[in-house]
């Protein structure tokens, strides 16, 4: 599958995929994304549900068995992890090139 098409990730997607490296339900992802981003990325409920729905359809996350009948548990898939890796490499390069050129000045 061509995973390049998902790049660049939005900040919201990036943090959701990161948060779901460990299984979690929707609200847990909202809290985790806020925590991981030092309180900068606050995803509202409607945006969160839509994002989980889209990512499930893109197969970057999947639902896993949940102990709570009302709350679905999600987890990042193999493809999702790969997209995260590609995105972090892309960002890393951007930072490296910045540091290099700034260093030259």
């Amino acid at each position, binding site marked *: 599958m061509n995973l390049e098409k998902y790049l660049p990730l*939005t900040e919201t997607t990036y943090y959701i995929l990161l948060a779901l490296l460990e299984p979690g*339900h*929707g*609200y847990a992802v909202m809290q985790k994304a806020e925590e991981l981003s030092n309180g900068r990325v*606050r995803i509202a*409920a409607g*945006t*969160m549900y839509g994002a989980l729905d889209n990512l499930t359809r893109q197969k970057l996350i999947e639902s896993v068995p949940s102990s709570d009948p009302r709350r679905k548990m999600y987890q990042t898939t193999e493809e999702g992890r790969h997209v995260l890796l590609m995105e972090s490499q892309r960002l890393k390069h951007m930072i490296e090139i910045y540091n290099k050129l700034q260093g030259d000045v």
Partner: protein
Amino acid sequence: MKKFKIFYDFDEEEKFLHDMAEQGHILKKYSIFGLYHFEDTEPQNLNYKIDYRIFKNRKEFDNYIALFEDAGWRHVCGTRSSGNQYFLPMSEKAGTDIFSDRVSAAARYKTLYKLCMLNVVFLLFYLLIILLSVGGDLSKLTFLTPGLWERTGKAFWSAFFFELPFVLFRVIPPILLTVVAVLYCYWGAKAKKIYKLSINKVDKYE
């Protein structure tokens, strides 16, 4: 109290519900095609938020409501297949909106547009079946009594009224289907227009 009103724009609908609550009319139920049921109480300042979603099963619907409740939003009304889902904040943690970026807020119009177009396709399909059933000859849907229009007086009227219910039974469904299809086209076009407007206002990577 009941009120009939049609909205194409969710922001306007939210404002309408907010204004009604300020006059002491609290939304109790929304039935399809614009019928709002209100309960009279004292005036309140309520920040209604509307999402648009249809769910494939009960479990998914429960999961959706649970997520909103966890985030501090109470599901006021809406069913699994109603599309419109109404929410009110129930605690501080809810914040001011159910969307944190404008792309996801605009996505509601895309869902609405797609559903309208899907309905149009279904309606056209039914129309096609009706058309095929008469071999494309629409006159076969009207009066079929041989020589009816040559008759006069009592003979004409008794035959006319005898067949009339059958004619209506044949003619009304395709007319109704056509009217509903046109309405859905109009509604879908409105949704698409608002979607385009709101999506063009945002940066591609927001």
